[in-house]
Every structure is written in structure tokens, then in C-alpha cells.
């Protein structure tokens, strides 16, 4: 099984990447390559959303890629949010905690709410 990656960057502040298949030792390099093209499209302080609803499996190598991606985004003051992982993937996140649980969302609404919250915090005077 392999990995397929699709991305969309409708606005510089937010890009979404859809992952489908397996993110493991055999495919993580492909993922890293693809993300090297996507991350520069996101502004500093922007948000990169990884839609994991079609991701069937993630291995520790995949987790490392996600952690690396998150670190790179954080270095540019950006955020990496994970959306709607399947239960088995969610379970891996829960166990390994390679990404903070707070950055994993079950739905777009939840994610938007979180982003709204962040923005309000940033724009609120003295916030």
C-alpha cells in the first residue's frame, strides 16, 4: 500500500494537506518531499492542516515526519494541526504523544473553533 498526498492552499495563512494510505518507513520520504513544497506556501504564523481521515496507518517513522513538520512550522511561528485521524491512528498519537493531543481535532468545526479562539487571543487587547 502506498501513500497519496493532495494539498490545497486557498489562502497564505492556511493550507490543507490530505493524506491517504499509509505513512510509514516506506512512504515517509515521499511525504517529506511533498511537504517541502507545501510548507513554503504557508505564511509565517500560518496554519498547516493535515487531514488524516483517509490515513489508514502511521508508523513511528511517520510520526517522526509529523514531528519534524510540526517543528519546522513552529520555527516559523506556524501551527500544524491534525484533523480527524482514524481511531487506530488516533490511538498511536495517544500512546506515543509525538504530537500534542491538543493539536488533534475530530472535525473541521472543532479545528475552526480552535483557530478562532487562538486568533481572538492574539487580537484581544492585552489578551
Amino acid at each position, binding site marked *: *500500500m502506498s501513500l497519496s498526498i493532495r494539498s490545497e492552499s486557498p489562502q497564505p495563512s492556511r493550507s490543507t494537506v490530505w493524506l491517504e494510505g499509509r505513512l510509514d*518507513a516506506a512512504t515517509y520520504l515521499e511525504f517529506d518531499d511533498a511537504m517541502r513544497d507545501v510548507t513554503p506556501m504557508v505564511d509565517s504564523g500560518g496554519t498547516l492542516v493535515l487531514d488524516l481521515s483517509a490515513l489508514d496507518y502511521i*508508523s*513511528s*517513522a511517520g*510520526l*517522526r515526519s509529523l*514531528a*519534524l513538520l510540526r*517543528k519546522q512550522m513552529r520555527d516559523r511561528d506556524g501551527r500544524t494541526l491534525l484533523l480527524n485521524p482514524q481511531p487506530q491512528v488516533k490511538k498511536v498519537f*495517544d*500512546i*506515543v*504523544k*509525538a504530537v*500534542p493531543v491538543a493539536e488533534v481535532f475530530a472535525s473541521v468545526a472543532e479545528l475552526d473553533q480552535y483557530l478562532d479562539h487562538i486568533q481572538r487571543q492574539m487580537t484581544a487587547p492585552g489578551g
Partner: protein
Amino acid sequence: MVLRSVASRLALGVLLGSAIVLIVTGGLMLSHTREQMLEQTRREAAAIAESASSRIHGRIDGVARVVRVLAGQVGTRHAQAATLIRDALTVNPEIAEIGAAFVPRAGQAHDGEAPTARRKVGGAVVMGSHLTDPQPYWTSPWFIQGLNCDEGCWQPPERRGIPLDAQVRYSMAIPGQAVPVQGVVDATIRLDWLQALLGSLDKPAHASAFVLDRDGEFLAHDWTSYVGTRASRPLLSAVTEGRTPVRITPEEGGRVSEPVWVAFVPIRGTRWTIGLTMPEREVLADLRRTYLVDLVLGMLALMGVSLIALAITRRLMAPLTVLADRAENVAQGDLDFALPEVRRDDEVGRLTRAFDQMRHQLAGHIDTARRTAREQERIASELEIARQIQLALLPAPHWLDGDGRIELHAALRPASAVGGDLYTYFALGARHVCVMVGDVSDKGIPAALFMARTVTLARTLATHARSPSDILQALNRELCKGNDTCMFVTLLCGVVETGTGLLTLASAGHEQPVLRAGDSAVLVDVETGPALGLDPEARYPVRVLSLLGGDTLLMYTDGVSEAHAGNQRLYGTDALLESVARVEDDATPETYVERVLRDVDNYVEGALAYDDIAVLAITWHDSGTEGARLDAVAHS
């Protein structure tokens, strides 16, 4: 095999192709030339026959004129008939005999009524009379026929014994005053002159001439035996229909031994026909000879062309032959050879140059491949050394503490030469033993290096700690330093108090261990903290449980729980629990490890391991202690 060479095949092809063209065009030319030759022969024959015909005509016309003049003269000068005919015979040497015969008056012929003049062999003229004929002349057919010839006519030839001595008579009625005719004047000529004339004709050597009379008999023929015989039916019908020239064959009934061509023309003033017979073989002999000569010359020319083609092709192909040999060299792996110097810019030149280039490139590739292979060999040997070093980082697979209370057994199976899974154990002070099983995120050399770092750090850091939580926190902080590649390791750390069997567990994102207590195998629910190396602030809660005698704790990496082959389902913790539960009571940790590994191997059915595997089983032997199981969770 001569035909294996392209050059000889080309030459042979040229030869064969040209030969076919030559034969076909030659055949067409032959047929055309044959027509022309036949036409020419016909014209030639017609000319000869025409000239012979005029000569014959001239001669017999003279005879006819003499007879006509005589007929007129004796008609009025009856009495001088004898003198007239004698004089006429004297001045016309071609005539053999002249006679004048009158219709007898009152049925009785008188002397002088039928005088004849005949030339004797010596040339002397002898007078005679028809009255001496054995049959009365007025009843003879020649006389009666002559009476009917107002304009003169040739009588059928008369032969006296031998055919060559034949004579023909020209008769003409003598006009009378009172009666229409009063007699007949006739002149006889011998036919030997005709025969002689045929012989003197300027005709081709192989041709023979003949003269046919109106009844279809040969008056004269070069083949003297034919004289006086009747011509063959095909010839006669051709003469009747005026078809000239005509081809007559023995099969059609011609009196010939081979196919002949006959051309003929009628002789004016007579009802004779003169013809020339030419054997077809002779007519076409020249043609055949010419054709054969042409054919031989053509063949010689073709062979010459083929030889030239062969030579040129050989010359052109010579470098190709060398190239073919060299290509065989290449096929056998020999790339070190000389190629002929080619300055030509044609296909052969290009091919040679490309071949040379290809050879050099191939040599380069082979060299690169050899170097790569050597490099790979070197890397493989380095990996093997690395593997041994990595294994040397780990403690012995089996360990029994001094009291014999704690027995543990571990196994590490990297998927490749080196791997990122690890296990380790060491004593913490006198009364504690620390065990760890971990899994670096990734495989191969980076994972192995990270693993080495982890194991080394763990031993160093753990000496000052007693709680697995502290150990993990310290280790995590160290691993986070400079970890730009975001490598991380999940680690399960347990500390056993050797005296009591109290086990404290902390997990950094690692798989839950399996506890075999009594007959059951359960997962020990350890709340995990983040994997080591990612978040320097991470905290790790501990889980405390008290082992009873014979309890075995199995720690493993995801190489076990996620073992699979191809698209197979993952092995899973349920299968693992089942596998552990099936192990008989009082088994050694070694048995647990071996059983688990064997079950995993059976599950993947010999497929290549997908991930590194580390398994560690620790058994608490304390039959004397029968305390209640202490189970507590503490947060650091």
C-alpha cells in the same frame, strides 16, 4: 558458409536478379527478333522468287511470242509452214522443237500438213512430221487442246521416262479465214533449263527452290527427286490461298524432315508458281547463335557486376565485420580491443564511432558498478561491524540476579543489519534492577545511532535515579538536545525492587507490557508520556505493581504487535496476549521470549521482518512471598 556474409548474399542477389531480368528481356528480344528475321527472310525469299519468276517469264514469254508470230504466219502461208518453223527453231535456241499441225481436210492429212522441226543433241535442226506419230495427231490430246488455245497456253509437261527430261509444250491455235481455227502451232521447251535456273539462283545456301505447275506437281526442284511428284497438301492449300510465307512441318503432312518456311510467287504468263523452301532451323540459326552469344556475354557481364558488387560490398562491410566480431567480444565481457580507424562519414563510420563510444561508456558503467559493488561490500561489512558494536551495547540476553529472584531474558532482532529497537537492564544500587525496552522512530543506521545514544545515556543517567519517571525525564531532556531531525524513541522503563518484587513502570509512548500472572495474560495499562526526544518538558506518570512469584512481565516493541506480511492484518495485542497465555506455568523467561518470537514468525510465515523486534521477559521468582498484589499508580 559463404552465404553468411552479407556481401556474398548481395552479390548473389544481384546476379540472380540481373539474370532473371536478362533472361526475360532476352526472351522478349528473341521473340521480337525472330519476327523480324522471318519477315526479312520472307522479303528476301520473295525477292529471289520474284527475280526467278521474271527470268522464267522472260524466257517462256519469248517462246510464246515465237509461237504467236508463227501462228499468224502459217495461218496465211500455209505452204511455207515447214520453212517458217525451221527458221524459227534455228533462231530460238531455247526451243527444242516446233511443230505446226493443221486440221486435216476431208479427214485425211497430207504431207506438209503437220511439219515439225526438232533440235538434235548436237544442235542440228531436223525436220519431221506429226504424221509419223504412232497415233493420228488430230486425235491426240495436245492437238485438241491446242485448238482451243486462241491465246496460247502451256500444256501439262510430258515426260519421257525420266522426270528430269520433261518437256512442256506451248500451243496456240492457228486462226483461219473461213473457219475460226485451222490448226495448232506448238513449241516444246525442255525443262532442264528451268532446273538449271533454279540451281543458278542467288539464294541462301540452305534454301532450295522449286517450280510448281498448275496441277501441283513440281516442274523443277532443287531436290531433283521431287521433280514430277506432287506437292504436299499444306503447301498446295497455301499456294491456293496465296499465304506466303508459310510454315510447313512434317506433322502437318509436309514432305519435309523438319519445319520449313516456304515463300512463293506466281510466275506471270503461266499458271506456275516458284517458291523457296528454307528450313526454320537454318533461318533462325543465326538468331539462335546471336542469342546464345548475347546470353553468354550477358552472363559474363553479370558475373562481372556481381564480382564488383561483392568487392564493393566487402569493402564497405569490412568495418562491419570487425564490429560484429567486436560486439561478440563485448558480449563475452571483453571491452579492451582496438577498433579500425574509420574516417568515413557514412552509416558505417557513424556506427563505428557510436560503437566505440558505447564501448567506452559501457566500460565506465561497468567500472562504476564494480566500484559501487565494492562500496556496498564495504558498507555491508561496516554495517556488520556496526551491528556487532550495537549488540555489544546491549547486555547479555539472559540474566539471573544474585538471589535468583529475578530472571530475565531478552531478544533483539533488527530488520536490517542494525536497528532502532533496544532493550537493556542494569542494577540500580544493590536492591533495584532497571529494565528498558525501546523503539527508535525509524530504522537503519540513524535509528541505530539514536538507539546507541539512548542506551548509553540511559545507563549514565539512571545511576542517580530510582524512579523510572525520573529516568525517563532525564533521558528525555538529554535526547531533546540538538534533536533537529525530530528522532524520537518510545521507551518502557521498569524498575524492580529485587527484595519485594515491587515493579514501577513508566512509559514514553511505548506499547503496554503484558503481565502473565497465574494463567492469565493481561495488558498493563501504563499511562504514557510523550516519546523521548520531542518535548523537553514532558512528564512521565508511573504505574506501580507488585509481582507475585512466577509472574512474568513481557516488554516488547511494535515489531511484535504490528508484525505482518504484505497486506496482512497486524499481529495485534490480542494475538500476543493469547500467545503469552498459552505458555505453560513456571516457564522461564526464555520460553516466553522464544514462544512469542515463534508465534510471530509463524504469523508472518517466513516473510522478511518489516520492523525491528525487541522482546524482554522478566520473571519474579519468590515462592516464599505470598503478599497481596500491590497495584498503584503514582504521578511524579
